[in-house]
C-alpha cells in the first residue's frame, strides 16, 4: 500500500475513534449530569435490596421463671421439593421412597406430589425438626431444598393447654394467654434496606436503613408448674375413676387472686391444635357454666350472717325433710328436724338454706349474689370468660329465691364460685383473678406487672371469720365433706351436687359434683375448686370431688410449703 493510502486510513481511523470517544463522552456526561430519574431508579432497584426482619415471639414462663419455659419459638425448616428437576432427572420413585421413610409419610402421596413437572416448589413437610433435616441432607437427594422457618412450640405438649392457648399459622395468638397477651408476645418486625454487589451479596457498609426487629416480650405467669402438673394428674385420675364426661379445677392464692393452677379435661396438644376438637379446646374453668348446687349455700349463709338475720346459734326447723313452699315441695337429701344454722351448713340442708334466703328477701339476696361476683365476668386475663346466668330480680318467680339458695336457677363458672369462697377466706375481699404475673422485655425492662386488685367486699371481716369457722365443720366428722380433709390441716369448704337440667327438666342420671374450699382454714393461703361433670356411678360432691380436692390441696401445701396454722393464730369467737 502507498504512503498516501496509509495516511488516509490513519486519518479515517482517528476520526472514527474520536467520534466514538466523543459520543461516549457525551453519553457519559449526559447520564451523569442530566436528571434521569427512571434510569437511576433502575440502577437502585438492581443494586439494593429490602428485607423484612421478623420479630421472635416472646416466651411464656411459669411463676418461677428461669428455665420453666411453657412456650417458645424454635428454629425449624420446611422441606420443599422441586418437582420439575426431579421429573427431569427421572427420579420420582426413588426420591419419594427415600423421603417417605425419613418424613414418615406414605410413598404414593409423595410420589403424586413430586410427579408435577410444571411445578417448581412443593412443600412436603412443614416445621421439620433438626434431626429430620440432617437425615434428608445426608441422603443427598437432588431437587430437595429447605426453607428456614420459626415454629411456636409447647415443650410439655398438652400441659396447661387451656391457659397457654396456641398460635395459628399466621403467628397470631388464637387462644389463651397467646391470644390475650398477643400484643406483648408478638413484638414488631424491623427492616433492612441495603446495597448489594454484583453477586447480590450485602454491602454492610452501605446499608441505607436498618430498623432492628423488636423482639416479643416474655410473659411470666402466676401458674406454678409443679402444682399444675399435680392438678392435671388428679383430674386425669378422677376422669378415669368416675368415667366422667369432663372435669376441671383451679387453685388460687386467696389473698391476691393469683391463679396457681388451672386445668380442664379433656385437653388437647397445642402443638397439634389443628387436630383438636372444639370441646377439647374449651377452658371449662372460665368458659363453662353450671348450676352450682349446694356450694351456693355458703353465699346464702354468709349474706344472712352479714345482715344479722341469723346467727350460728339460731335454730331453724328443717321440716323433717319436706317443706311445701309456693306450691312446690322442697326436699332435703336427709331428713332433719330442728337444726342450728351452724349444723345446717354442715349437713347441707336445702330447706334451711331456702328459709334463710327468704328471710333476706329477694333484693338483698340478689345484691349479695352480685357482690360475690355472680352474673358478671371477674375479668381474668384470659379470653373466653363467661359471665354465668343470674336473672334480675324482676324476672324471679315465687320460688326463685328458695331455688337460688340451693344453687338451682343460677349458673356460674368455677372461677366465680372459687372467687366467692376466696372472698370468705380473705376477710370478705373479692379479688380479681389473674394468670399473668408480669411481662418483661428482652432487656429485662418490666413492661407490665400485675398487682392484686379488690373487686368488692360483700361481707365484713367478722362475718368472714364466722363463715370460715362454719365451713371448717363441713370437713369434720358428720359433715358432707369429710373426704376432703387434708391430714395435718384444717380445711374449710363445701360440697355441691347438682342435677343437670336436660331438656328443661332436672335429670336424675346426670349430675355435676363439686367441692370448693380453702386451707389452712384459720389462716387461709390457697383456695381450690374441683368440678366433675357427669360422674358415674357415684355422683355426689363429697364422694367424687372431695377426694380430688384432698389430693390437690394436700400436694399443693407441700409444693408451696404452706404450714398448718400455728396455735398462736387461732381465731377466737
Amino acid at each position, binding site marked *: 500500500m502507498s504512503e498516501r493510502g496509509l495516511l488516509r486510513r490513519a486519518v479515517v481511523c482517528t476520526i472514527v475513534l474520536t467520534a466514538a470517544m466523543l459520543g461516549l463522552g457525551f453519553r457519559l456526561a449526559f447520564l451523569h449530569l442530566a436528571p434521569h430519574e427512571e434510569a437511576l431508579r433502575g440502577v437502585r432497584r438492581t443494586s439494593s435490596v429490602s428485607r423484612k426482619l421478623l420479630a*421472635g415471639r416472646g416466651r411464656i414462663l411459669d411463676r418461677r421463671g428461669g*428455665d*420453666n*419455659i*411453657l412456650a*417458645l*419459638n*424454635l*428454629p425449624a425448616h420446611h422441606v420443599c421439593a422441586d418437582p420439575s428437576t426431579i421429573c427431569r432427572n427421572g427420579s420420582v420413585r426413588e426420591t419419594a421412597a427415600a423421603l417417605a421413610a425419613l418424613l414418615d409419610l406414605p410413598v404414593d402421596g409423595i410420589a403424586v406430589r413430586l410427579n408435577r413437572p410444571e411445578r417448581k416448589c412443593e412443600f412436603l413437610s412443614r416445621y421439620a425438626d*433438626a434431626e429430620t433435616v440432617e437425615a434428608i441432607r445426608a441422603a443427598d437427594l437432588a431437587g430437595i431444598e429447605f426453607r428456614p422457618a420459626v415454629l411456636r*412450640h409447647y*415443650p*410439655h405438649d398438652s*400441659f396447661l393447654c387451656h391457659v397457654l392457648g396456641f398460635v395459628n399459622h399466621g403467628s397470631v395468638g388464637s387462644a389463651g394467654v397467646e391470644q390475650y397477651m398477643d400484643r406483648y408476645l408478638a413484638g414488631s418486625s424491623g427492616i433492612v434496606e441495603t446495597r448489594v454487589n454484583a453477586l447480590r451479596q*450485602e*454491602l*454492610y*457498609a*452501605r446499608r441505607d436503613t436498618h430498623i432492628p426487629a423488636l423482639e416479643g416480650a416474655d410473659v411470666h405467669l402466676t401458674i406454678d*408448674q*409443679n402444682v399444675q*402438673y*399435680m392438678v392435671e394428674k388428679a383430674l386425669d385420675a378422677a376422669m378415669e375413676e368416675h368415667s366422667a364426661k369432663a372435669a376441671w379445677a383451679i387453685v388460687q392464692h386467696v389473698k391476691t387472686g393469683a391463679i396457681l393452677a388451672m386445668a380442664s379435661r379433656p385437653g388437647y396438644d397445642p402443638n397439634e391444635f389443628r387436630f383438636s376438637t372444639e370441646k377439647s379446646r374449651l377452658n371449662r374453668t372460665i368458659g363453662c357454666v353450671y348450676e352450682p348446687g349446694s356450694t351456693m349455700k355458703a353465699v346464702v349463709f354468709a349474706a344472712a350472717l352479714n345482715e344479722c338475720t341469723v346467727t350460728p346459734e339460731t335454730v331453724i326447723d328443717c321440716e323433717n325433710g319436706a317443706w311445701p313452699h309456693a306450691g312446690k315441695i322442697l326436699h332435703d337429701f336427709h331428713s332433719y328436724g330442728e337444726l342450728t344454722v351452724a349444723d345446717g351448713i354442715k349437713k347441707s340442708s336445702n330447706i334451711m338454706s331456702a328459709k334463710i334466703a327468704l328471710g333476706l328477701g329477694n333484693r338483698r339476696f340478689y345484691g349479695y349474689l352480685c357482690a360475690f361476683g355472680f352474673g358478671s365476668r371477674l375479668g381474668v386475663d384470659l379470653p373466653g370468660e363467661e359471665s354465668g346466668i343470674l336473672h334480675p330480680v324482676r324476672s324471679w318467680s315465687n320460688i326463685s329465691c328458695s331455688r337460688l339458695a340451693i344453687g338451682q336457677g343460677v349458673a356460674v363458672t368455677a372461677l366465680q364460685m372459687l372467687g366467692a369462697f376466696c372472698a370468705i377466706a380473705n376477710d370478705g375481699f373479692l379479688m380479681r383473678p389473674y394468670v399473668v404475673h408480669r411481662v418483661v422485655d428482652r432487656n429485662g425492662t418490666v413492661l407490665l406487672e400485675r398487682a392484686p386488685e379488690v373487686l368488692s367486699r360483700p361481707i365484713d371481716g367478722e362475718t368472714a371469720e364466722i363463715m370460715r369457722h362454719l365451713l371448717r365443720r363441713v370437713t369434720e366428722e358428720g359433715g358432707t365433706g369429710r373426704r376432703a380433709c387434708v*391430714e*395435718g390441716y384444717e380445711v374449710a369448704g363445701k360440697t355441691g351436687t347438682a342435677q343437670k337440667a336436660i331438656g328443661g327438666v332436672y335429670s336424675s342420671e346426670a349430675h355435676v359434683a363439686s367441692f370448693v374450699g380453702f386451707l389452712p382454714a384459720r389462716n387461709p393461703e390457697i383456695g381450690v375448686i374441683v368440678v366433675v361433670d357427669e360422674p358415674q356411678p357415684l355422683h355426689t360432691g363429697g364422694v367424687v370431688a372431695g377426694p380430688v380436692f384432698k389430693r390437690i390441696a394436700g*400436694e399443693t401445701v*407441700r409444693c408451696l*410449703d404452706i*404450714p398448718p396454722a*400455728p*396455735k*398462736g*393464730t387461732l381465731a377466737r369467737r
Partner: protein
Amino acid sequence: MVVSSLALAYVWLGCRCESLGRELKVLEQRQSELKKHYDTEAFKWARKKSPRNIERTLERRRITMVWPHRTRVVRLLEDDLNGGLSGDAAADVHKYARLDRVTGHE
C-alpha cells in the same frame, strides 16, 4: 505526592470499611445461629426438667419418692429464730418460719 497519599488512604479506608462490614455480617449470622442454638437447648432443658419427665425418669430408675410424713417434719417458729421474745410480743408472733428463713439460719 499528597494527592497520591490521600487517594491511597481513601482506598485503604474503603477496603477497611468493606472488611469490617463483612466481619459484622458474619458476626450477625453467628449471633443468629447462637440464638437458635440457645433456644433449642432451652427447649431441651425445659423438657428435661418438667415434672412429667422427672417422674418418668424416676420410674425408669425404679426410684420412689414421697413427701416426708408430717410427723417427720420439724418446723421452727419465727420467735425461735428471733432468739425468743417475752410476754405479749411472743404471743403476737406465733408464726411458722418460712423455709428460706430456716435455710438462711443454718
